[in-house]
């Protein structure tokens, strides 16, 4: 911003000073450009006028459009699929290098085999570890379940014992209450036991 401003100011100064002393920029090309631009745009014409030998340079500059690559701009690359077989390494000699002699084949084979063995070994180790963890969890769950069951049994037993104790050590008043309860129970049961009967009337 700053340099353009200074240029504008310069022209402004020249224009204002043009009235006073117009011989400051006496070049032919400038007058031509002025004529071409006419009275349409005063400011840009004056900008051109300010620089000597500019018309040719200006054209070339206008034509040149800066082309930036993605890398220069720092734009993240598109997530495109580049298959393994399609990518061609740069800076390498053209053509294929065949593997046909026994030595190179054995070398590749040994490499591949070692890699595969390592992978399988690590897979097995991981599987064993996971299995151990699962086993431990299962044992823990079983233990908790057994504990819960034992607790339940304990409470059941205690309740049974309590009931027995109350039956054995019950007082006369309690016994009466019990009897009443029993009678009520049997009474209700008797009432419940009464069933409706259907019989055909004798002819």
């Amino acid at each position: 911003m700053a340099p353009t401003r200074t240029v504008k100011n310069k022209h402004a100064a020249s224009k204002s000073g043009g009235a006073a002393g117009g011989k400051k920029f006496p070049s032919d090309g400038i007058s031509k450009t002025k004529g071409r631009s006419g009275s349409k745009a005063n400011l840009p014409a004056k900008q051109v006028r300010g620089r000597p030998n500019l018309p040719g340079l200006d054209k070339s500059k206008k034509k040149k459009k800066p082309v930036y690559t993605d890398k220069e701009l720092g734009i993240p690359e598109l997530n495109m699929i580049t298959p393994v077989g399609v990518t061609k390494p740069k800076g390498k000699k053209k053509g294929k290098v065949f593997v046909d002699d026994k030595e190179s084949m054995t070398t590749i084979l040994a490499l591949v085999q070692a890699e595969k063995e390592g992978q399988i070994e690590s897979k097995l180790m991981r599987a064993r570890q996971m299995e151990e963890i699962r086993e431990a969890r299962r044992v823990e769950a079983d233990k908790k379940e057994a504990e819960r069951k034992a607790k339940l049994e304990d409470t059941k037993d205690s309740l049974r014992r309590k009931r027995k104790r109350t039956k054995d050590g019950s007082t006369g008043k309690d016994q009466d209450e019990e009897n009443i309860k029993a009678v009520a129970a049997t009474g209700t049961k008797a009432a419940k036991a009464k069933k409706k009967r259907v019989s055909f009337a004798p002819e």
Partner: protein
Amino acid sequence: MRPLTDEEMKTVLDKLANYVSDLKSLIAPLEDGDRYVFRLNHSRVYYVKLSLANLATSISRDALLSLGTCLGKMTKTGKFRLHITALPIIAPGARHKIWVKDNGAQPFLYGSNVVKAHVGRWSEDCPEHSGCVVYSMADIPLGFGVTARSTTEARRLDPTGIVCFRQSDCGEYLRDEDTLFAG
């Protein structure tokens, strides 16, 4: 027909190593001084005796339909896909094995996965997602696949659970007759 490049060789051997425990036996020298080599023609990889491969150089690429044993084909993305024709090569040195009962042989040969109910035996210490060869109870190789569960996990599986994902089976000789060897 040409030998494989470094990358191609790695890809092919990597795939074979999933199924075969000892790769060195594949390229071990034979008694008559000959040895097996890998050759590529029309994106198909062949496992062939060197003497035969040398003879085949007299036939033009277009005219050569097949030679030796076809192992599989290189895909356009540079991966390698094993065909059922590779079974005679991978079966003798199989890393992991699954034997299917007689009632499971037919479903497998028709292209379905192996379920637990059909398994007669399986090799111990087999991790999941590793290559295995499927045999009938009479020890006849039927095809190959990838294990769905490890052996220990598979024991707890219900009878309808999948134990092995099918990769290739002998039924392909009929089903893929048109595309198996050419095209």
